[in-house]
């Protein structure tokens, strides 16, 4: 067995992480529902370990229903270290803007619809990524800081999905959840991608989480 494979999470550790992701995204959705008038339909999250070099293809396949997407990329830094990708299909910015109850006319001629749509996506990503990553880390009794988000609006997935997140020959743990805003026909995808730098700490933290129930 290679060193990389030994470092990767075991099946049970992945199951623990999946349950933590489930809890964290549930809290994040509740936070979002407090801010905008919507109901977030949750799905069962998935956790898997991949080679970094295979990540772009994996993400492209997951979102293959959509030719044009908007994507927010934000790094989280700490012992739980990685990159969050929040992906929406084309048109989501406009729908999210409606959820915030905003009209472009309210902002005068100086503000474009595109800018407002971008702001609405950033606001949703700020809540979902911040609350979800924050809750996972809180459950693991640690903390993280965030880099400023990077946003790409309405582009083809091959241009928008980052290709060089981590070292290409290393492994990454991918936490993925898909969600819908029930009354707006908007789907979204949240990927939390942890580099193998955090594997060693993560394994210990996950096992420590379960020890409280022993």
């Amino acid at each position, binding site marked *: 067995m290679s060193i990389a494979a030994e470092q990767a999470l075991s099946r049970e550790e992945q199951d623990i992480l999946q*349950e933590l992701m489930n809890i*964290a995204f*549930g*809290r994040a959705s509740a936070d979002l*529902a407090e801010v905008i008038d919507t109901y*977030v339909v949750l799905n*069962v999250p998935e956790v898997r370990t991949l080679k970094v070099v295979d990540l772009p293809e994996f993400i492209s396949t997951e979102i293959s229903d959509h030719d044009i997407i908007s994507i927010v990329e934000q790094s989280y830094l700490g012992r739980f270290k990685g990159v969050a990708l929040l992906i929406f299909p084309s048109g989501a910015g406009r729908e999210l803007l409606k959820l915030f109850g905003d009209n472009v006319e309210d902002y005068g001629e100086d503000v474009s619809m595109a800018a407002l749509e971008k702001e609405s996506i950033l606001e949703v990503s700020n809540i979902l990524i911040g609350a979800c990553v924050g809750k996972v880390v809180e459950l693991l009794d640690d903390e993280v800081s965030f880099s400023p988000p990077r946003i790409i609006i309405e582009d083809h997935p091959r241009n928008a999905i980052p290709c060089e997140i981590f070292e290409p020959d290393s492994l990454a743990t991918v936490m993925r959840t898909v969600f819908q805003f029930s009354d707006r026909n908007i789907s979204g995808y949240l990927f939390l991608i942890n580099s193998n730098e955090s594997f060693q700490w993560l394994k210990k933290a996950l096992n420590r989480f379960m020890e409280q*129930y022993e």
Partner: protein
Amino acid sequence: MIHTILIVDDSTISRKIVKKCLPKDREFELFEAGDGLAGLEKFKEVKPDLVFLDLTMPVMDGVQALKEMLKVDQDAVVVVQTADVQKKTISNVMDSGAFTLLRKPLSPEAVAEVLRLVEGTGHKKG
């Protein structure tokens, strides 16, 4: 007294946490299922005194399973344990007939309180 408990959750970890949160000084007969439909079938088979039911599950979700269980036995005691803590979810679950809703992750204190409440109300077969 509660003796038989059915735990329905697609997460093996979540089912393990429920089991670990049950009082250590009591004995229970435990049954498990990994999705709502399997949970419903197990419910019909064993007629448990208490059900811990997750919401976000494949095949059949928790709300549907809850409604089906109550069709089978209108006195069923179903405690929903979920990560989905949106207000609309909580009201939907309670309107659908759940005994109560617990936020994940469960704690031994929360589970002990639920057992006390269920047994205190005499809600189910004695």
